[in-house]
């Protein structure tokens, strides 16, 4: 119980520090601006496509983008193309009824989450180790409690960052599309799923941050880890094929991307499965870092 209270205090300190230093503001802006830009770019492309289609079919121009693309999304050839891209019938069935714009947002948050998490959180432990600020805390709480508090504080900030990105993306969608006002709950839904996915990358980023006293080195190592872990399934698949070792592909379970596909599903069971795997993976990488930190000089 006392441990939980200490973890809570460290988490609170992390959030308060982020607010005071404007780190939280930068985090929010980064998520909002990147989501808004992605949405703006995508809708612009849709708009241009619609204009050209309208000209080709000699139809009157729509006031707002979305009318033609919604029709296009529902068309059989396009659905066939999407099915081929998804290459998973269950996921395809689950996303079929969804609005294309919410899927664009979902794709964006899943795609950008690892990099955004590493860029915004990768230096947090290393910086405190370098400045020596950690010493004022670890004389009052255990190193594991301090690390868990950091994790909890940053995880909490990611909730707000993803919620803000959903709102940012939704605002752009509402301004530029004719039928997007009802999309906000769906955006929050994808934001929540992205948060689960981000937790595993937060574990990776903070785990690595325990290994070094340099914030920039921790961030660089985090980016390297993101690239390596994202490339790993492909590498394993190729090696499994070339060397005829199908068991190699089992190691894919060590990558957060392996559970990501389940986050696209609608039903509870696969979502719970994904949540469990992602949190476990995040904690695994995080625990590696904490284990090293507990044995090293601070």
């Amino acid at each position, binding site marked *: 119980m006392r441990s939980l209270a200490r973890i809570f205090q460290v988490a609170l300190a992390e959030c308060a*520090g982020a607010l005071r230093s404007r780190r939280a503001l930068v985090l929010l802006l980064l998520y909002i601006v990147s989501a808004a830009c992605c949405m703006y770019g995508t809708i612009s492309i849709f708009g241009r496509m619609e204009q050209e289609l309208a000209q080709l079919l000699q139809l009157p121009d729509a006031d707002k983008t979305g009318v033609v693309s919604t029709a296009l999304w529902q068309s059989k050839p396009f659905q066939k193309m999407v099915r081929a891209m998804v290459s998973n019938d269950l996921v395809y069935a689950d996303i079929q009824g969804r609005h294309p714009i919410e899927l664009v947002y979902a794709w964006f948050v899943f795609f950008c989450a690892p990099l955004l998490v590493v860029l915004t959180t990768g230096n947090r432990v290393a910086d405190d180790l370098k400045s*020596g600020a950690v010493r004022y805390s670890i*004389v009052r709480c255990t190193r594991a409690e301090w690390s868990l508090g950091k994790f909890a504080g940053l995880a909490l900030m990611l909730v707000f960052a993803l919620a803000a990105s959903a709102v940012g993306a939704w605002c752009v969608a509402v301004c530029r599309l004719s039928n997007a006002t009802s999309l906000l709950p769906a955006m929050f839904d994808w934001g929540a799923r992205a948060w689960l996915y981000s937790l595993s990358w937060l574990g990776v980023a903070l785990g690595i941050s325990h290994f070094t006293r340099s914030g920039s080195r921790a961030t660089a190592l985090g980016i390297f880890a993101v690239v390596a872990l994202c490339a790993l399934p492909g590498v394993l698949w190729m090696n499994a094929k070339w060397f005829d070792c199908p068991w190699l592909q089992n190691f894919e379970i060590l990558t957060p991307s392996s559970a990501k596909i389940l986050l696209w599903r609608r039903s509870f069971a696969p979502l719970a499965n994904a949540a469990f795997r992602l949190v476990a993976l995040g904690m695994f990488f995080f625990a590696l870092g904490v284990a090293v930190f507990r044995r090293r000089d601070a």
Partner: protein
Amino acid sequence: MTGAAISTSALVKRYGRRRALDGFTLAVPQGAVMGLVGPNGAGKTTWMMCVAGFLRPTDGTIDVLGRGPFNASVHSGRLSILPQDSALPLEANPRALLYRYGRLQGLSAEVSRASTAEVLAAMNLADRADSTIRSLSHGMRKRVMLAQCFIGSPEVVLLDEPLNGLDPAEQSRMRNFILARRGRQTIVVSSHNLNDVEILCTHVAFVENGRVVRMATVRDITSAAGRVVYTLAAAPADPSALVEALSSALPGTSFSWKGEAELACDFAASGADVAAVNAALLPVLIGKAGVVSVAAGQSLEQAYLKHDSV
């Protein structure tokens, strides 16, 4: 004072081939103010960091308050440290930071708030309690660092160069603050200012090459020198005649002039104690030159420098 608040035995800390601690054995009595004195790189800071659990010793044993080596789950709130070269979070303000440290070490919100106000006032920081650490001067930041050591009155406080960077008025205030805690808290002070150590500490340990080479009470070190220094009211007209008169008053003593009106008497060979020496010499001195002050023994600085030159 019962037992040792901190006890380290044969402590070794190795960095590659270099041994920062090389068999550091020291027991700090409960309620004592222990001064660690030694040259740069002697191992004073390393020892403190090992005791506080920041550094992992290569070998040896540590016992803090009879509960084994430092473990935050056991010692949180019972030991605090002023670490060297450790920055406070720059965006925090002293009040919020100290309150949070209090909460972290298990104080209730109310107690933590009261303790924060108390230490902020003691460190003369009440008027800057809500400024950011970034906006404080070096000396003020040092005072915040000192304040965090005394939140919740921990039983053991380790202070590494506590008065460095403070202005004279704040140094005096801090000295009084530490003196007021004598006997109530066990305090270890590492300092190069031997005058401060002499004033603040009840015990002192000379540290060299990663080990303690001498540990005693400050009184033992400063009074065991077998020397009394007399400051005379005026320089005598005939110094050698005065010395001759003194030598005949107490045979077996030797005299040396430290200035025109300052005479040191070394009496170790005479077998007398300070009281007997004064009883024999003062009447002669008062009659012939007048005495302004009498100082028994030697300063800690003199004792340390004498020890260092051996």
